[in-house]
C-alpha cells in the first residue's frame, strides 16, 4: 500500500503564539510534498481528533504526523491501529514553544527542524505486522513451597492451566518443616499454625493444576508462549509445552559449617534455627551433647549475615524467627532463660507488635552486640563473648545451647551443576574492548536448564539472586516470560511470599495473553514491533547474540543469530550493536533515525548557528526534557533532540552521519548504570558508553575532536540539570569550534 502522509499541526497551548504555523505547514507541503497538511487550534479536542480520523477514513491517510505536544501526552486521543496507521509525533509544545523565546528566528528554526525530522521519520516508518504463532497459555510453576503453591492457585483461579513441578517428594517446602509461624494477622501477638496443609489440599484438588513431585526440569527450550519443557520424574521424561514460567524455587539456609567462629561444628550444642524447628516439633529443647534440657539458650542473630565474609545482606526473616523460637522455648519452660544477641532487630511494620510482646517476657534478654567468640567450658557449657553491648561493656554469657540465626541463600545462587560457561569466542581487539562490559553472571543452579545461547539459568545481579529491575519491575527477570517469585528473588517471609506469588502469577498471565496478541510484554507493553534481520548481510560477529540483555537470540553452529521474537523486549540494543546495521523494526531502525539526523538543516559556518543532536533515552532523559518544558526552563535553541527506545540503540553510523553532515556535536543522555542501574533494559546505557569510548578513539585518530561527543547519565529526578548540561556542552562545542565538515 502506498504511503499517504497527513501532517497535523496544533496551534494551541501557546504553540500558535510563538511559532509561524503557516511557515511550518508550508515546509511540509512544499519541501516534503506532503499530500495532506492541516492545522487546528486544538488538535486533541473532539473536532481536532475527528479531523484526523476523517482524513484516515476518507482521504486514505495512513501515516499521521502530529506536531503538537509531547508524545507522552494525550496518548488516548492520538491512538491508531499500528497495523494500519503509522504515527509520528513532533513535540512543538514542551520542547519548543514552552521553553524558547517566542517568534525568535532560532525558535522557528528549531520547530522547522523538528518538522523535517518528524516527516523524514514518518516517510520511512512502515505499519506493523505482529509476530504470530500458536501460543500456549499454560503456566509452569517451578517449586512447590508456599510461593509456588500460591502462584499455581492464583493462576488456576484466573482460569489458566497450571503445571506445578516440585523436586522433593511432597509439596509444602519450608513451611511444612516449621512448627509454627510468627503472627501474620492482627493483633500480631500469638504464634500461628502455618496453614500449609490446607493449601496443599487445595492445590491437589484443583483440576486445572497438574502436579509433578519428585521431579526436575531437564531442559527448557523455546520462548514465551512456546516453551518446551522436559520434566523427568521417576526415571521417565516428558516434554510439555507451556507459555510462561514462575520460578519459585525458594532458598536454602546458609551453610552453618562456614560459621566455625561461632562454634558450629566445634560443639554439638551450637545449633541452627532450622534445627530448633525440628526440636520444637518434637517438643523438647535438649542439648544435643547429652540430651539435658537446655535451661539457657542464646540466639546469635545475623549468624553469617550482614557480614562481608559471608552473606552480605539481611535475610529479613531471622529476627522474627528467633523471637518466635524464644517464645517456643519460654512457653515450654518458664524457667529457661533466652538471650538474643543481635546486630539490629528488624521487625518491620506490624511485626513490631510481636517483638514488643516477646521483649516483655521477663526471661528474654536482648542486647545489641558483636559476638566475638563461642567456646565451651569443662562442663560443656557454652561461653559467648560479646563486645559493644548495650549493657555498656564487653560481656560474657553462659548458655546450655547456642542457636545460630542463619540467613537465606537463593536456590538460584547455589551452583549445582559443574558447568563451565562457554567462553565467547573471538580475539580481535574490538572483542577485547567489548569485554570491559561486565559479563553476565549465570550460575548453573540446575533449576530451568534453559537452552539459551547466553546460559542455562536466569542471570543474577548480586549474591545469586536473579537480576530484576528492582526499582520499577521487581518480578521481571532478564528472561522474558520467566518470573522469579518468593525467596529465590529476594529474602522474604511467608506473608510476603504469598503476595509475591500472586504478583508473579499475574505477570505470567499477562505474558501469555500479550504474547498471543503478538505484543511485547514489558516494559514496552503492547508494542507490536519486533526486530527483523536481513540475514544475507550477517557476518556472524555474534555481537547481537552476546549483547542482548534478555538472551533473545540463540545461535546456530555457524554463529548465525536465531531470533526468538517472543523473548524480545523491543529495546533495540541489538540494533545498536550490529556493525552491518541489518537489525530493524518496521517503525524504528538505523535508517529511520539516520534519516532524522540527516534531515536537520545545518546553517553555514558563518551564520554562527551551531547544531547539536541530542539522543535522549525515552525512559528518563526524554521525560525529563518534558518536565523542563512544563517548568518553562529555557535552554540553548541549537539542540535537536531525538528520542530513543534506549541509549543502547545508538548505532555508530548515526554519529558518523551527524558529523559528516556538519553537525557540531552529539550528546547522548541515558539512564544510570552499574549495580544500582536504572536502565529499563539493564545494560543499554552501559553498552552505549563503552561503544562511545571506542568511537572517541576513532575520532581522535581522524583528528576530529572527541569532545564533540559526550555521553551522560541522568535520572528523572535530575531534570533540572538538563538546561545546564546543554549550556555546558554548547560551551564546549564553541570552544572546539565549528565542525570542519560543514558545507561538504
Amino acid at each position, binding site marked *: 500500500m502506498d504511503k499517504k502522509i497527513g501532517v497535523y499541526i496544533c496551534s494551541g497551548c501557546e504553540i500558535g503564539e510563538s511559532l509561524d504555523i503557516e511557515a511550518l505547514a508550508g515546509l511540509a507541503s512544499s519541501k516534503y510534498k506532503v499530500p495532506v497538511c492541516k492545522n487546528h487550534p486544538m488538535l486533541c479536542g473532539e473536532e481536532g481528533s475527528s479531523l484526523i480520523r476523517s482524513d484516515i477514513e476518507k482521504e486514505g491517510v495512513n501515516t499521521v504526523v502530529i506536531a503538537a505536544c509531547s508524545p507522552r501526552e494525550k496518548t488516548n486521543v492520538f491512538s491508531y491501529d499500528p497495523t494500519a496507521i503509522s504515527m509520528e509525533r513532533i513535540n512543538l509544545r514542551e520542547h519548543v514553544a514552552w521553553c524558547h523565546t517566542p517568534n525568535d528566528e532560532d525558535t522557528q528554526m528549531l520547530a522547522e527542524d523538528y518538522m523535517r525530522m518528524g516527516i523524514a521519520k514518518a516517510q520511512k516508518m512502515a505499519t506493523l505486522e505482529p509476530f504470530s504463532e500458536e501460543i500456549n497459555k499454560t503456566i509452569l510453576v517451578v517449586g512447590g513451597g508456599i510461593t509456588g503453591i500460591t502462584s499455581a492457585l492464583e493462576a488456576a483461579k484466573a482460569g489458566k492451566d497450571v503445571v506445578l513441578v516440585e523436586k522433593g517428594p511432597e509439596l509444602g517446602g519450608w513451611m511444612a518443616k516449621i512448627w509454627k509461624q510468627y503472627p501474620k494477622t492482627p493483633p500480631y501477638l500469638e504464634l500461628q499454625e502455618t496453614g500449609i496443609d490446607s493449601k496443599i489440599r487445595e492445590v491437589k484438588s484443583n483440576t486445572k493444576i497438574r502436579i509433578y513431585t519428585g521431579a526436575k526440569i531437564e531442559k527448557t527450550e523455546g520462548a514465551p508462549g512456546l516453551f518446551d519443557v522436559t520434566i523427568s520424574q521417576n526415571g521417565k521424561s516428558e516434554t510439555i509445552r507451556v507459555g510462561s514460567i514462575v520460578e519459585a524455587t525458594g532458598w536454602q539456609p546458609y551453610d552453618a559449617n562456614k560459621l566455625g567462629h561461632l562454634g558450629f561444628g566445634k560443639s554439638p550444642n551450637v545449633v541452627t534455627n532450622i534445627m530448633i524447628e525440628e526440636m520444637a516439633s518434637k517438643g523438647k529443647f535438649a542439648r544435643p551433647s547429652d540430651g539435658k534440657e537446655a535451661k539457657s539458650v542464646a540466639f546469635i542473630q545475623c549468624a553469617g549475615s550482614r557480614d562481608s565474609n559471608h552473606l552480605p545482606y539481611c535475610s529479613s526473616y531471622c529476627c522474627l524467627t528467633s523471637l518466635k523460637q524464644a517464645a517456643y522455648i519460654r512457653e515450654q519452660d518458664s524457667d529457661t*532463660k533466652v538471650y538474643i544477641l543481635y546486630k539490629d532487630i528488624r521487625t518491620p511494620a506490624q511485626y513490631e507488635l510481636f517483638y514488643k510482646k516477646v521483649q*516483655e*517476657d*521477663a526471661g528474654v534478654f536482648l542486647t545489641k552486640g558483636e559476638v566475638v567468640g563461642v567456646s565451651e567450658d569443662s562442663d560443656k557449657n557454652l561461653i559467648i563473648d560479646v563486645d559493644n553491648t*548495650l*549493657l*555498656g561493656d*564487653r560481656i*560474657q554469657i553462659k548458655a546450655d545451647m547456642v542457636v545460630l540465626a542463619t540467613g537465606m541463600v537463593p536456590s538460584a545462587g547455589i551452583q549445582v551443576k559443574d558447568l563451565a560457561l562457554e567462553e565467547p569466542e573471538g580475539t580481535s581487539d574490538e572483542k577485547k574492548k567489548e569485554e570491559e562490559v561486565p559479563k553476565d553472571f549465570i550460575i548453573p543452579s540446575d533449576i530451568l536448564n534453559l537452552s539459551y545461547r547466553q546460559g542455562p539459568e536466569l542471570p543474577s545481579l548480586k549474591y545469586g539472586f536473579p537480576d530484576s529491575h528492582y526499582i520499577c519491575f521487581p518480578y521481571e527477570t532478564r528472561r522474558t516470560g520467566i518470573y522469579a517469585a518468593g525467596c529465590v528473588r529476594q529474602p522474604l517471609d511467608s506473608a510476603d511470599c504469598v503476595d509475591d506469588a500472586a504478583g508473579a502469577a499475574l505477570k505470567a498471565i499477562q505474558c501469555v495473553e500479550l504474547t498471543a496478541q503478538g505484543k511485547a510484554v514489558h516494559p514496552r507493553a503492547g508494542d507490536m514491533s519486533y526486530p527483523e534481520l536481513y540475514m544475507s548481510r550477517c557476518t556472524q560477529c555474534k555481537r547481537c547474540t552476546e549483547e542482548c540483555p534478555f538472551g533473545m537470540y540463540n545461535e546456530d553452529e555457524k554463529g548465525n543469530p536465531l531470533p526468538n521474537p517472543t523473548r524480545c523486549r523491543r529495546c533495540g540494543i541489538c540494533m545498536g550493536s550490529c556493525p552491518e546495521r541489518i537489525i530493524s523494526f518496521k517503525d524504528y531502525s538505523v535508517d529511520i533515525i539516520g534519516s532524522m539526523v540527516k534531515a536537520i538543516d545545518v546553517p553555514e559556518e558563518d551564520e554562527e548557528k551551531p547544531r547539536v543532536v541530542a539522543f535522549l533515552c525515552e525512559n528518563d532523559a526524554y521525560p525529563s526534557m518534558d518536565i523542563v518544558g512544563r517548568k518553562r526552563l529555557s535552554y540553548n535553541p541549537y539542540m535537536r533532540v531525538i528520542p530513543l527506545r534506549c541509549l543502547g540503540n545508538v548505532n555508530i553510523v548515526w554519529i558518523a552521519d551527524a558529523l559528516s553532515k556538519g553537525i557540531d556535536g552529539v550528546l547522548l543522555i541515558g539512564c544510570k548504570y552499574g549495580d544500582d542501574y536504572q536502565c529499563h533494559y539493564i545494560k543499554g546505557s552501559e553498552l552505549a558508553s563503552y561503544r562511545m569510548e571506542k568511537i572517541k578513539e576513532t575520532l581522535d585518530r581522524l583528528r576530529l575532536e572527541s569532545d564533540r561527543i559526550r555521553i551522560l547519565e541522568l535520572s528523572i529526578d535530575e531534570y533540572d540539570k538538563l538546561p545546564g548540561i546543554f549550556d555546558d556542552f554548547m560551551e564546549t562545542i564553541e570552544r572546539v569550534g565549528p565542525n570542519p565538515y560543514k558545507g561538504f
Partner: protein
Amino acid sequence: MADRQLIEPDMNFVKKLAGFGGDTLKKCFQCATCSVVCNLSPERNPFPRKEMIWASWGLKDRLLTDPDVWLCHQCNDCSTYCPRGAKPGDALAAIRNYSFMHYASPGFLGKALSQGRYLPLLLAFPIVLFLFLLGITGHLNIPEGEIVFKKFVPHTIVDPVFILVSILVFISIVVGVKRFWKGMKDGVHPSESRNLSLLDFVKSHVIPVLVDVFKHSKFKDCEENRPRYLAHLMIFYGFIALAIVTGIVFIGIYLLGLHEMLPLSQLNPIKLFANLGAIALFIGCTLVISNRLKAEEDKSRSTYLDWVFIIIVYLVAISGILTEVTRLFDVAVLAYPFYFVHLVLVFYLIAYLPFSKFAHFIYRTVALVYASYSGREK
C-alpha cells in the same frame, strides 16, 4: 576497658521489680531518649538508659550499687517522652523501692512493709503495745477535767518506747547506709579511696548536698512535673518544723526539767511554729495525693509503697490537727482517742522508717553525697 564480665541475669529480680512498679521496664528498646531529656542526668554514662537494660536483664548487683538510681527525682520527663511506654521514671522508683527492702535490717520487716497483707499486723503492733502499756499502768480510761494528754499517756510510758525505737531505727539506718556506701564504692561507679579529712569531706561534699536538699534545687530542674516541687517542699519543711518542735520540747522536759511546759499556749512561738508545720504537712500531702490522682496512667503509676506512705503521713497530719482542735474545744471523748491514733501512726512512721519509702531521704542524700564525692556529677 574492664575485663570481660560474666553476666548472669536474675529473672526473679525482674519479676520483683515488676511488682514494685517496674512492670513496663522490659518495653525499653534503648533509644536513650530518656537520658537525653533528663535534666539531672550527668553527661558521662547518663542514666536512666543504662539502668533500663540492666533492669530488664535483672542485673540486681549493678542496680543496687548505682548512685544514679537515687539522683533521679522522678519528675517523669523520661516517661513522658519514652516512645515505647517503658516508663523509666517508674522503673527507677521500683529499683529504689527494692533497695529499701534490700539494705534495711532486719530483712523480714522490709518484706512485711512491701506487702499490703501485712499492713494490719504492722498497725496492730503499736496499738497492742500501747494498749498493753496503758492497761498495766491503769490508764485505759478518758481522764476527767482539763484535757492534758499526759494524764492519759504519761511521758514515762510513751517516751521510753519512742526513745528505744529511735535508737533501733538509728542503728538500722547506720548499718544500711554503711552497706549502701560500700556497695556504691565497689559498684558500677566506683570511687577511689581518697585521703580526705572528715572536715573537708563535710565541707566539700555534705554541706553543698544538704544546701541543695534544703533548696530543693534538683526538684526545680525537673520540668514535666512542676507541681510536685511545691508539694514535696511543704511536706519536707512541715516535717522539719515538727522535728524541731519535738526536739525543743524534749530538751525542755528532760534537760531543762520543765515538766509542766505542755501544753504550750497557742501564743507561744514554738506552738505557732508547730502549727505551721502541721498545716504545711497537711497541705503538702493533699497536693501530693491530688497530683497522683490526676496523674496520667501512661506516664506514671503509683504503687502500694507510694500510697501507703503518703496516706500514713497524711493521717499523721490529720490526726495531729484533730487532736489539737478537739483539745482546744475541750471535747475529751474525741481528743484522747485522736491522740491515741496519732501516737500509733507516729510510731508506724518512725519505727518502720528504714523499711518504708520514708527512708528515701536518707538514701537519696547519701547517694547525692557519694555522687559529689566520687565526681559523679555534671
